[in-house]
């Protein structure tokens, strides 16, 4: 026997991001606007807590569901900030990043042959995650004219009613779109009417600029059919700590934990100590980072306006999603990289619905952003 990828691995096409990553890696002195993670370091207090935990020798596994202390903090934080009430005993599971949580949900709560409606464009891992779980994918392409929000119309048109679950991310990667509570009501009604469960990726919940985040799980009849995912990577700039969590009804969390306890055992212990400190004492850092992102967002949107590039006003996360001036966004991104040394990601890397757009990350210092925008402007001239 030789090693050949399993069919489910073969079924996943190479990532559109991977291709640009390889191209960018070959070049020197590029300015990358293709980075989907904060350019800030984790708050010092959180790093200090991680160091202290190591000095104290706190290096063993924790409870499978995560340290009780951390789950209590998460419950308090979600209640205070997002009006979500979950019991730390059996409704919260601490995972190695929100991505692990989504993977667990696909595998623990769906059967092979079930289908999942995926609002697109979306984070690159949803579709492969579903394929790895043997779950079919129904593409739900959101539209620029709807500001990339989910609507009853796109759900109906895409055949999402036949799916077993809906997965989405708001504030959204890659578009920066957000949805208000009012807008989510239609989505919630659709899910109730068609008996869909919801996997709500809310990893960017604290990075909003126009209005506060609303979770669909706060809407009537939705808590019992929703699993919410969040984590410390984005708001607290703790991507490398690999720490997230899932919240949902006990039966969902228990099923997810059954896989988690045999695969991950428990999320990284050092990271859990850092996360407790982050929730207790690092909100000023989050506010400061959000202020910086907002300035950069204004800068980028304003520059696109000057360039005559259509870009709807992103209201969350740290991405702008302008229309691509060329028909083929991949060709444009590649030419921009080769000619000007500016890396952006074509919207198609994030699935149907991303076509004709570019993802620009403003998790980049203003000086670099300015230079990248200047180069882009001269490239367009």
């Amino acid at each position: 026997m030789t090693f050949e990828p399993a069919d489910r691995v073969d079924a996943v096409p190479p990532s559109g991001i991977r291709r640009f990553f390889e191209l960018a890696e070959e070049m020197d002195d590029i300015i990358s606007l293709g980075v989907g993670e904060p350019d800030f370091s984790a708050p010092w207090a959180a790093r200090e807590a991680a160091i202290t935990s190591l000095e104290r020798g706190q290096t063993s596994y924790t409870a499978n569901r995560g340290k009780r202390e951390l789950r209590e903090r998460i419950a308090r934080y979600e209640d205070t900030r997002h009006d979500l009430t979950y019991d730390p005993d059996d409704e919260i599971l601490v995972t190695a990043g929100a991505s692990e949580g989504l993977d667990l949900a696909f595998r623990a709560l769906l059967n092979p042959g079930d289908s999942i409606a995926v609002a697109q464009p979306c984070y690159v891992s949803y579709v492969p995650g579903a394929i790895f779980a043997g779950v079919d994918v129904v593409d739900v392409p959101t539209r620029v004219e709807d500001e990339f929000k989910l609507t009853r119309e796109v759900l109906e048109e895409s055949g999402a009613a036949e799916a077993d679950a809906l997965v989405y991310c708001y504030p959204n990667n890659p578009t920066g779109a957000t949805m208000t509570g009012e807008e989510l009501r239609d989505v919630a009604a659709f899910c109730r009417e068609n008996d869909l469960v919801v996997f709500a990726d809310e990893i960017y919940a604290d990075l909003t600029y126009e209005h506060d985040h609303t979770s669909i799980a706060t809407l009537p009849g939705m808590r019992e059919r929703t699993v919410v995912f969040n984590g410390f990577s984005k708001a607290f700039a703790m991507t490398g700590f690999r720490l997230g969590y899932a919240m949902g009804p006990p039966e969902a969390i228990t099923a997810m934990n059954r896989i988690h306890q045999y695969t991950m055992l428990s999320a990284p212990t050092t990271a859990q100590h850092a996360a407790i400190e982050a929730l207790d004492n690092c909100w000023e850092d989050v506010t400061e980072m959000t202020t910086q992102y907002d300035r950069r967002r204004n800068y980028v949107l304003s520059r696109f306006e000057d360039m005559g590039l259509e870009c709807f006003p992103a209201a969350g996360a740290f991405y702008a999603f302008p229309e691509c001036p060329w028909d083929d966004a991949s060709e444009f991104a590649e030419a921009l990289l080769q000619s000007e040394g500016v890396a952006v990601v074509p919207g198609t890397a994030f699935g149907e619905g991303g076509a004709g757009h570019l993802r620009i990350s403003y998790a980049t210092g203003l000086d670099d952003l300015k230079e990248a925008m200047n180069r882009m402007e001269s490239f367009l001239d």
Partner: protein
Amino acid sequence: MSSRREILHLLRENARYTTEDLAHMTDFSESEVEAIVEEFEDAGVIRGYQAVVDWGAVETDEERVRATVELNVALDRETNYSDIADRVAKFPEVTSLRLVSGDYDFDLEVEGDSMREVSHFISDKIAPIPEITQTVTHYIMDSYKEQGMTFDDHDDDDRLSVSP
């Protein structure tokens, strides 16, 4: 909605932001930014614009010496803190002067071309002022952070150049 105060924060972050940059980052137009900055300058809110220099990184034979000096003073009916501050602040060698709480009264920063020059300045010009009862001079040996900016070389961005 952007506030006028935000312009101050941005200029504190980088005084070389152009009017155009500031307009891009805020809800103000370029002409509004110009007017706001002018108003702040006229009102003395913005007192000046300076570079934050890491003198340790300057390749030169010139010695540049800085010291912080703790000053204790004795007040009388005719002399208050402001009177002493006015007198001390006038020396060009003094780069900053603050009234502080704690074990001493004034925190003074002094710059000179040599330790000798700084020492002479303290002993000849500052110490003899009648109200000053004590000076304690600390020479600055190295600087790691000034005006909120760290002087380290650990700012390389080693994130993946493209990531999800």
